Each structure stands twice: as C-alpha cells, then as structure tokens.
C-alpha cells in the first residue's frame, strides 16, 4: 500500500443537487492505486482557515488517471470546496485507509444513504469489472429526494444492478427509510456493503446479524491526519478503540461496538 501527496488539477465540477457536488481531479498516482472504500484527504484552500484537510471517499477512479469525489455541502470546508473552479490545483493525499473486501462471488447488496452512496459507485464499478453477473446483486439507495437520487441511480443501473430507491419525501421510490427495503433482499445475498448515516447502518447491521449475512460498513469520524498519526479518529470496537483512518474506514460490522460508537 502506498499513498501520495499530489497537486491535482480540478477537471470537472457538476452539481447533482443544489448542495451536492461531484468533483473530478487529474490524480494519476492516486487513481492507479485506489481501491473501493478508500478515501483522500483534501486541502480545500491554500490558507490556514480551515486548517485541516477534509476526508472524502473515492467515488470513482478511472484508468485515465482521474478520480471523482461526491459530497454534500455541510460546513465551511465543503462550502469552499464546492466553489473551487475548474483548472484550480488542489492538494490531495491518498489513497488512504482500508477499503471493501469484495473477493467473494456470491450475490451482494450495496446500501448507500445520502453521501454514503459515494464510495459504493466505485465498488459497484469494480465488482462489475470483475466479470460478475450484476443482475443478481442488489443496490439500495436512499436520500432526501429524487433530485439527489436520480442521477446516481442511473449510474448504478447502467452497470446492470437491480436498483431500488427510497426518499425522505417519497418523490422517488419508497417513501422512508432504506433499511425498510432490506427484508426482501437479505435472503438472496451473502454479503452487504453499506455506507451512510449512523442510524441507518446500525439498523442494517442488526438485520444482517439476525439473517447471518456478513456486513461491511464504511464509517465517518473526525480526522486530523487520515494516516494513523494523530490517533484522533477512534471509535469503540468490541475489543477496545479502533482507528478509522487506518483500520478502516471499512470494517467488518462484527468488530464494532455499535451501542457506543
């Protein structure tokens, strides 16, 4: 495993919803090494405010040396990032962390909530490229509304997956919570991959445990360094604290102490 610090040119900036942005960077070294579930630390500005880099999952990584990030504007850092112009050079460090383990051949289910969808597209693409029959795999995506979901859903569909949607306002798919959809899917899959809001993941992990289906989750915590140096990114594991940036962000759900995280 190797990571790089690179000045990366911003190649494209698409707004999927008013506050949901997809950025594509020229990042050859990162793109070549990245695996689904890994992330990058982005310096959103050259100045000192905000000071720390921001972590984002790699949403797409392409053989042409580009990577994409998909994120929602929620605070100072993402606001600045969303306003960077095509042509700007940003300083990225990555790929970082431990990604998804997707060596199996049995049907799987990818479950993304909100921006948790970001790493799953990269995973979906890699799964598809491994030559499997993606029609047997399931993709469940949830977000606030149709605007946010539609463009992403199409990209999963284009890869051949059976995609089901849930939206908070019912503007597309099931109105409500994504885990509601899981009942019907769990019996036919051997592995669940999920990323999204904590409550959603907790619920999914519970269902998986009952159904005895293996589940990998991608976690978010506040990170100062992203590479195991600050020890700031801990969460409670069953056998003590674990560091999300190095031991994760993807964990086998069983190792985590869900009640305390």
């Amino acid at each position, binding site marked *: 495993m*190797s*990571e*790089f*610090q*690179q*000045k990366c040119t911003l190649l494209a900036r698409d707004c999927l919803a008013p506050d949901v942005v997809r950025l594509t960077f020229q990042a050859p*070294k990162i793109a070549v090494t990245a695996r689904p579930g890994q992330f990058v630390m982005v*310096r959103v500005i050259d100045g*000192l*405010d*905000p*000071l*720390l*880099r921001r972590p984002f999952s790699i949403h797409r990584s392409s053989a042409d040396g580009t990577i994409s990030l998909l994120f929602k504007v929620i605070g100072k850092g993402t606001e600045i990032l969303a306003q960077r112009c095509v042509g700007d050079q940003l*300083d990225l*460090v990555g790929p970082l962390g431990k990604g998804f383990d997707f060596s199996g051949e049995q049907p799987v289910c990818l479950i993304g909530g909100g921006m948790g969808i970001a790493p799953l597209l990269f995973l979906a693409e890699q799964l598809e490229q491994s030559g499997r029959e993606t029609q047997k795999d399931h993709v469940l995506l949830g977000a606030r509304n149709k605007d946010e979901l539609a463009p992403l859903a199409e990209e999963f569909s284009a890869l051949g997956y059976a995609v089901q949607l849930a939206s908070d306002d019912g503007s597309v798919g099931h109105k409500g919570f994504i885990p509601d959809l899981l009942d019907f899917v769990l019996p036919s899959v051997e592995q669940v991959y999920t990323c999204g809001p904590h409550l959603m993941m907790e619920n999914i992990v519970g269902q998986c445990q009952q159904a005895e289906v293996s589940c990998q989750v991608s976690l978010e*915590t*506040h*990170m*100062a*360094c992203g*590479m*195991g*140096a*600050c*020890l*700031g*990114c*801990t*969460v*409670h594991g069953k056998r*003590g*604290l674990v560091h999300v940036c190095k031991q994760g962000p993807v964990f086998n759900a069983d190792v985590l102490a869900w009640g305390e995280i």
Partner: protein
Amino acid sequence: MKEDYMNPAEEIVLCTGPDVRVQIGSLALRNPVMTASGTFGYAREFENLVDLERLGAIVVKGISLQPKPGNPPPRVVETACGMLNAIGLENVGVDRFIAGKMKYLRSLTTPVVVNILGDSVEEYGEIARRLDGVEGVAALEVNISCPNVKKGGVAFGTMPEMAARVTEAVREASGLPLIVKLSPNVTDIVLMAKAVEEAGADAVSLINTLIGMAIDPMSRKPRLANVIGGLSGPAIKPVALRMVWQVAQAVALPVIGIGGITTADDAVEFMLAGASAIQVGTANFYDPSAAENIVQGITGYLQQQGEDRLVDIIGTLKTGMA
C-alpha cells in the same frame, strides 16, 4: 511516495549550500527540523510521503510505562487556525514500543527522540531506565504536561519543584541526552525552564499545547468527550514564539521551539528568537511535506541573507531601537 516538487538545480543547492547542522547538547543534528511528538506517529506512518532521511530528528508519540487506551472519542476538533486534541496519551507502553517500533526506527539514519510521560516521578524514572541503552534511541524528551496523580492531578509542568523532581529522576535513570518539554499553561515559563535546567536537563523544548475547549451550540455538548483538550497549530505560534524568546534569554540550555510552525519563515522566527532547533507538529497533518519543505526553505533563507552557517543566526533578533 512524495510528489517530487524539486528540480535538479535545487537538489544541488542542498549539497553545496549553507551549513544547517545544529547541536542540542551532545546530540548532533543534520538540520534543525524535528517532528513533534504525537503528530508524526512512529514515523513509519509517513514513510511514503516524506523522505525521513531528510529530517533533523524524529520525536515519537509519547510513551508511558503501561499501555494506555486514551480518551473516548471525539478526540480532535478543528478551531480557527488550530485544533484541539484530547487523545489522552494513547500508546502501546514502553515495552511494546521497544519490541515493536524500534526496529523500523533504527533502520533510519535520522536520530530518534523518545517522548516519555508518567503519572508519578517514579514512573518517569522507570521508563527512562527501560529506554536507556536501547539501540537507536538518540535522546529522551520528557513531557511534563501530564497530571501528577499523587498530587491530585496538577500537571507536573505547572510547578517548578515537581518539574525538577521529574527531571532529576530521569537524569538519574538514563545517560541519554535529556530534553524537558515545557507546558505553556503557566504564569512564568522562565521559572519552569530554570528549574529543569538546575535539575540537570540538557535542553528544553517548548511549547506543548495550550489548554482549550470547544462547544457544539446545537447539542450543547463539548466537542471533545474529554471536555478540554490541547490547542495546537498556527493559532498558538505567537505565544510559543514569545515563550521561546523569554526562555532563550534566561537559560544557558539549548532551546527547541515548537508551536504552529508551518513554513521555513516560521522556523526562522523561532531561531532568531533563540531556538537551536524546532519541531513541526500539527502542520504534519495538513501538509505532510511541511517538515521537508522547511529544511529546504531554511537553506534558501540563509543564502538570501548571505549566511554560511545556520548556527550564526540563532538568537540574533534585533530588539534595539536601531
């Protein structure tokens, strides 16, 4: 792997340029740029991003006698031009450190300084004893910003007598060069520096973090599970620089400057104020190449100023009216 920003011309400068070697007591450094404890892990974390052989020295994460799990999360939060941390001194303990981390560190030619911490005077002594004679340990840095459990949790670093006793205990237990790292959370840091000087320290390093706090207005909870934490980063640089200047004037020991250093100019400020070396802390997080860039930038500064040797600028701040 680090993106190679340097062109060949600059490479040559590094070979033929000014002499940037410095001396911290008996510890000779190829350049004054060290990485600060707790911000550079055990160095290996940065091996792909930084040429570790270019650093002046590496100070590893603080080591205690027994392993420590650290504080519950959240442990870090960003503040204006700074950050708060309440890691709680998580570490594997001195024995596992020696067994598990020293092998890699020994493989580097860069001197390794081990930062140590304890709950009691005896514990400091004991850790020092276990590290004494361990191959590859170039010096000890004693973190006295820890609470003295026997004295109701008052930090060793806030009382001159307690700081002196810790220094003596380590001095007795080990022949290694002894750096005492001072806390800035005191009325008079010069008193602290003098106390550890008399107690046998070979150098002082300063500053450790300022104690701070942040609150989330929405949840009405502290942003750190530990409520309070240590403030670091560019925000604290002016305080650190002032303290380094005060201490450098008051003691004969070499002083190592720490606090918010991000650029070569920052490093030079500390050296003009009297520091013989500096440590890069929080900057490693937001710019892993900071320490390496500072090494290069110091060379550039000396050339621009027409100086042949870095040691000649230490403490040359002009404070007269002229």
